[in-house]
């Protein structure tokens, strides 16, 4: 059984590769084929691996200048919670596009919490995660404050 600190290295590397280096291919290898994605960015994506990858791709496509900072991690040997701050501007495909609103160009900075389960090969088998959608929509002017 790995230690909590060893477990934290998997999401730390994942965040660096996917969100900082924008390398979605890394996610293809580090997310298990039978992963359960509990919180896809859009419920229409479903809850399988393709939904997990599509959610990551959409975050990157919507935010060409994305910056992600890990603020806290709590772990057991096979589970890690990550509290992080996502910052950037609505200058890609448009966070409001599903509502028919083109990219606003406005900046946002919001916190989120994710929890992943990690198998013996270091792959993510389960993910749930929520971020402060109301604050983000207010910052982008997509919802009254």
């Amino acid at each position, binding site marked *: 059984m790995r230690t909590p600190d060893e477990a934290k290295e998997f999401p730390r590397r994942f965040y660096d590769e996917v969100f900082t280096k924008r390398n979605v291919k890394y996610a293809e290898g580090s997310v298990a084929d039978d992963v359960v994605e509990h919180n896809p960015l859009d419920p229409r994506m479903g809850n399988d691996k393709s939904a997990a990858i599509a959610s990551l791709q959409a975050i990157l496509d919507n935010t060409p200048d994305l910056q992600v900072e890990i603020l*806290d991690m*709590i772990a057991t040997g096979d589970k890690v*919670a990550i509290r992080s701050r996502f910052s950037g501007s609505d200058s890609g495909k448009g966070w409001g596009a599903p*509502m028919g609103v083109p990219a606003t160009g406005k900046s946002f900075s919001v*916190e989120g*919490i994710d929890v992943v389960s990690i198998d013996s090969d270091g792959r993510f088998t389960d993910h749930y*995660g*929520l*971020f402060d959608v109301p*604050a983000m929509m207010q910052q982008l002017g997509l919802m009254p404050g």
Partner: protein
Amino acid sequence: MSDVERNIDVFRRLEAAHQARDNNTIRSLLTDDFTPHTAGSEMLPPGADGAIASNEGSFSFMPDKRTEILEIFGEGDRTVAHVRMRATNTGEPIAWAGLSEATGKAVDFDWIQISRHADDGRIAETWSQMDIPTMLMQLGAMPAPGGM
């Protein structure tokens, strides 16, 4: 019992006290300087009074509110809980969601909370994320993606 097991037990007892509206127990499980880092908590009274006001507010909107801890684990002075809440908006209208009357609709959504426990196990700080979009869609206060 390890400190982590004790902290998990404190979280479970606090959630049960919220459900039972047992304000004395809520007070006993939070530190005097309890600080929640949750959107909207800056509008609440400081300390345990804010936690109680928030809980009572939820019951005023949804008198049948019930929660279930789906998963909980911890490390060091932190616990992480994934909680499911089910309720029906048969009480007061949820004004902050832009609703002027009670919808009578049922909601079923999750939140994730990280808690920092003091040396004696009481909860001193919390960071939470609630699935507000799902709740608003279930109440009909926000359109689902792709139209309803």
